[in-house]
Each structure stands twice: as C-alpha cells, then as structure tokens.
C-alpha cells in the first residue's frame, strides 16, 4: 500500500510499504477514505519530537471502511464505516474505566521510553513516535487499528467524510480544551492559536455558554475564520498590538479572561527578546519547547482563573511563571484529548446541525500529494488551515 513516511527532519515521502495485518485479537484493518495532517504532525515534521525513525508512517486523524477484524472484535463487521480516535486505548485499565483514554496504561508497548522522558507513560498514539508506541499511522491506504472494539466510532447516517473526520482528533481536542475551562454563563474565554484546534476550541466555548471568546493569532485569514466561522466575538492580531496582556485587560475591564486556552504548543511564535531567547534555547536543545503562548496565557488570565493547555508540548520549558500561577491561584488543566469520551456526544452536535466541522478545510488533495500538503501547512502557504488527504 501507499503510506506517508517520515524520512527525517522536514522530509516526508509517500512510499510503498507492506499492507498491515491483524497482530492482536482485538485489531481491525481499516481501508482509509480520508485522513488529515494535524498541526501536531508539524512538530514531527520539524524534528522536535524525539524517537522518530526513518520510515515511520505518519498520521493520526483518519477514517474509512473496516475490511478485516480480529477474532475478539464483536461490535464491528466488515464494511462498517468508522472514524478512528487518535489515542489507542484498551478500555479495561483503571485509566480507561475513568474515561481517561489518552492515559491508557496498556496501549504503549514502548512505555519504558516514555517513562525515561516523562516519568510515566501515557497511551500509545497512531503515527506519533516510538516513545508513544511505534504504531504505524493513518496517512496511508490502510491502517491496523488496535482495540477496535473500544475506539472506532461507527458512522451510519451517511454524513460526509468531511463532516465527521475531525471527530478523530481536532474537534474533541478543541472541545476538551473548552470543557476544561469550566465555563459559566457570562464568562470571557481567550484562545491562543487560531489553527484547527483553536477554531474548535472557540466554537466549543461558544457551545458551552461563553459570553465572549477572543481569538489570538498572527495570520489575518485564521483570525477571519475564527470570527466568521467558529464564532469568536473578538480577534487580536498579536503582531499588531504592543502587549497581548494589556490588550486583553482593556477588553475585559482590567480583569483578564476568565479562562485561557493554549491551542499553540511547543512551536509558538512571538516577538521581542523572550521569543529570541526561546528560539536559541530550542535550537541548541537547551529546552525542547518554546512556551511563548503558554507564558502569555498564564500572565493574562484573571486571578483564580483557568489555563487550559491542549497545544502539544514534548519536554522541557524555561522561564515558567510559576509565581504568577501560585500567587494568583490559577488552575492549569491539560492533557491529550480523551477522544473516545467525546466522540458520540460531538457526533450528536454534527447530526443536529449545531456545527459543521468541515469549515476548517482549506485544501483537499490526493494521498500521494502529502509531501506538498506538509510544505503548505508548515509554510501557511495559500492561506492553508487544514489539509485533507483522500486515499
């Protein structure tokens, strides 16, 4: 089959590899119809996530048709149309039973690597480094899906791929980002990053009852999408203001937003000496992540507010403003999304027409064009927001 492989820093190729087969009794093989490039794939592309090997198949947002099932899979049959959640989860461990699927205790066969880096291991993830399991990803014609009786969501109502594909990651991820804010009526939420996850965090914050949602980014086309499609009430281009924090104070009567969502993660941009500092430290591996958006979200948040982090971080950061967090009683909430917990509920929103997630798609191309898709997405060429690949 054809598959998009990581070949080294800023190099992906679509190559022929063997077809996947059943390896565990609860596996399914899915013929992929649509798959997408995630913003977090760009961290792999840029070589910032450790433990990638040449030839690793990328991709963790995918859907398609079940073509084969393992002997222990009872809920699916060949021909079913499914969306596959990006965290791999067993459904039986203590974490899964507490709905914390991205913390599954059994799905990472390379847990020892994650433990060396992070102390404990989270769940395995499709196409996301050996440290997170060494599972082949879904930017391919076929994928092996472990625990097929736990993860995949059946789509039975004929909704288009474009409407349901993002249930695999970015819609639930944005939703969890908003849910972790504990939004109450009348609240003001600020969202750093108007990439695809940021767009869904904005839309979800509105769905969950926020009074105002402020989108922060540097690309006018992304801010326009946030305002016109996702429902942001206000937009801030951080390159056009002196200080995001001061701007947010002005917009919120001096209080600061009730909750701040970091939908940016480890490759944040910014301006000023701190940005240069982080670029240098990251380039020399003295820190792995550039926490510019996170620092800003913390200092901007109102006293006693919530900072919700769904942007991906991989390792260590410097100049973390812990004094601000502690003295002002902030709550930090974070995590890889427990997609399995949210899929059904969010499918309901799509079915009822509350939201059409396809609004983020700016480019659709053939799987064989994946390398061009990565280039466009990383370079923000042609106002690129989200690339969908058709297999």
């Amino acid at each position, binding site marked *: 089959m054809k*598959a998009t*492989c990581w070949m*080294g*820093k800023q190099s992906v190729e679509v190559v022929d*590899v*063997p*077809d*996947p*087969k059943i*390896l*565990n*009794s*609860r596996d399914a093989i899915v013929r992929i119809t649509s798959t997408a490039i995630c913003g977090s794939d760009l961290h792999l592309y840029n*070589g910032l996530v*450790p433990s990638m*090997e*040449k*030839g*690793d*198949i990328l991709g963790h947002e995918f859907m398609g048709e079940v073509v084969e099932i393992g002997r*222990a899979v009872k809920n699916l049959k060949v021909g079913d149309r499914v969306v596959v959640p990006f965290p791999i989860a*067993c459904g*039986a*461990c*203590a974490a899964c*039973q507490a709905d914390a699927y991205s913390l599954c*205790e*059994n*799905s990472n*066969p*390379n*847990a*020892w690597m994650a433990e*060396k880096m992070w102390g404990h291991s989270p769940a*395995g993830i499709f*196409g996301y480094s*050996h440290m997170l*399991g*060494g*599972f*082949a*990803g879904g930017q391919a014609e076929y994928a*092996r899906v*472990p625990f097929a009786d736990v993860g995949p969501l059946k789509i039975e109502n004929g909704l288009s791929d474009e409407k349901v594909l993002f249930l695999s990651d970015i819609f639930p991820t944005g939703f969890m980002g908003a849910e972790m804010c504990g939004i109450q009526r009348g609240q003001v939420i600020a969202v750093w990053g108007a990439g695809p996850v940021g767009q869904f965090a904005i839309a979800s914050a509105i769905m969950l009852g926020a009074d105002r949602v402020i989108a922060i980014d540097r690309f006018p086309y992304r801010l326009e999408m946030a305002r016109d499609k996702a429902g942001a009430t206000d937009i801030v281009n951080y390159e056009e203001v002196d200080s995001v924090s001061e701007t947010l104070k002005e917009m919120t009567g001096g209080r600061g937003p009730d909750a701040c969502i970091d939908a940016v993660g480890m490759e944040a941009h910014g301006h000023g000496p701190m940005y240069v500092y982080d670029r240098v430290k990251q380039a*020399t*591996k*003295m820190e792995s992540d550039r926490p510019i958006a996170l620092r800003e979200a913390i200092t901007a948040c109102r006293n006693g507010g919530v900072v919700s982090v769904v942007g991906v971080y991989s390792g260590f950061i410097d100049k973390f403003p812990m004094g601000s967090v502690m003295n002002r009683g902030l709550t930090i909430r974070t995590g890889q999304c427990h997609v399995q917990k949210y899929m059904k509920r969010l499918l309901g929103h799509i079915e009822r027409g509350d939201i059409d997630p396809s609004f983020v798609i700016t480019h659709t191309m053939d799987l064989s064009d994946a390398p061009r898709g990565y280039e466009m997405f990383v370079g923000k060429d042609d106002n690129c927001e989200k690339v969908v690949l058709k297999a």
Partner: protein
Amino acid sequence: MEVASRSTASRAEAGKADRLANALGWFSIGLGLAQIAAPRSVARLIGVKDDDKTTTLMRTIGVRELASGIGILNQPRAPGWAWSRVAGDVMDLALLGSALNASDENRGRTVAASAAVLGVTALDVLYGQQVKRRQSEEAMADERGTTAKDGDREVTRVITINRPPDEVYGFWRRLDNLPRFMRHLESVEVIDQQRSHWRAKGPADKTVEWDAVITQDRPNELIAWQAEGNADVYNEGTVRFRPAPGGRGTEVVVDLRYDPPGGAAGVAVAKLLHREPGQQVYDDLRRLKQVLEIGEVVVSDATAYPGTPHPAQPDVRAEVTV
C-alpha cells in the same frame, strides 16, 4: 543515625563511593559541555558521522550528561542520578552500536569509543550498586531475614494491576503461565508443588537453565523462590501481592536477587544487549498487566518484529509474540 551505626569498614567503602561519585560527576559535566559546545568535533573523535542529525543528538546527550553530572555532585548518595548515568551509557552504547552497523569508515574509532563507554558503564554500574546497596542492605535484610551475599545484584520493581490479589496470585502460582509475559523465559516446567525447571535465553542467545524451589507460599500474598544446586544464573526472589488502596486491584512487588554470569561485566554486557534486569523485570510486569487486564500482550508495528529498531510500518515477516 545511619552514619553513627555504620562500621569503620563501610565508612571506608562510603568514602570510596563518594570519590567515585565526584570523578563521575565531573566527567559528566566535562563531556556534556564538550558535546554541547563542539558536537561535530566529539562526533569525529568517536568516529560517527558529523551530520546534522548527529549534531542534534550529540547536544541532547550533552544536556543529559550535564544534568546527571550536576545531579551526582549535588546528591552523591541518591541512586537515581547514578542510574541516570547508567541509562545514558546504555543509550550511548546502542547509538555506537548503530554507528558500527551503519558505516565502515571510522569503525576503529567507534570501536574504541564503545570500549571506553563500556569501561565507564562498568564504573557507573559499580557506583550505582555501591549507593544502592548501602541504602537497601538493611531494609532488605529486615524484610527477608537474610543478608546480601557478596556479588549478588538486586532489583525491585512494582506495578498495579486492575484485578483482585487472588486472581493475580493464582495466575502467577501456575508457573507455566510465566513465559506468557516474561519475554526471556523459554519454558517453566512444573515438577511438583515446590519444584520447577526453568529455561531462559541468556546473553548472546545462549540458553540458561536451572531448577527452582518455592521456599514460601502464602496464598494471595506472597511467593518466594530460590534457584537450586548448580544454577547457570543463581537467583532468588519474592513476589508479593497486596491490595491496592481504593479498590484499584493489586500491587505486585517483585524483589529479585541474582548472580549474573561474569559478575559486573556480565551485567554490563546484558545492558548492552538491552537486557538490563531491572528494565526487563518491569517490562515483564507490564506484560503481566496486559495479559491479566486485556488477555494478551499488545504489540505495535515497531515492536512486533525481531531486531530493533524497526520503523513504525507493517512488515511481511511473521510477528513475534510472547
């Protein structure tokens, strides 16, 4: 109190360990700084390619070296920092191993660098053992009513399994279940209620065998065993099953004491082959958890096939299962 109760002999040993700690700590810092400041020169010195990937890797390793060095100098008696050096050594050996496979040029330098790292690994293991033994000797003796025999190695690993103690104990007590999750075991043959015959893959894929006898058996609580007679690898240990608080199943605690073939050098070789016993015991426990919680050992595309590293993509070969 600990110092007051220590004998003169063990004070002398502690002094030796601290001097070793100092040397290893400064060595880490020196090497770390060199790797960060001049990654290409270090790469050339040890005979690996000085391309961008290596430079990045070298700097990452440099940061790690600095961290362990500073850690060791600050807390010379905390075994964690000593083991961070050992973990680092294993990583370096693996990297040098792949450099050896990758190219013929500079093979001599890579071999020399490997030998140097192997030497340092032995020192690190020695130091880690000194620190750890000092801290655990009395505790272990209290726990089991025995004293550590010179030359033995010890590991303790713990995991929580979402199943009740009687089920976990029952599974383990049927010793022929053990090869289902202990990757290095080829077979366990039950001879009678107490005795069994074990076959395992040792270093360099040599089969090692021994008879074991169960010395203590407290249903749902504890099993203790000991190798009998002329074992290839002398080993003894206990596995304890205790209820996890809050109804979270069972905490399984394995204490293993063993006398590896070749002593410290044997341990270093085992580490080189990624068979470091502590890691191996923990990986085995994780597979036990998988077998009991979900019925089988989970594999990924990168871990299902013999030989590492394997990229995260399917393979036409038959997968290995435990």
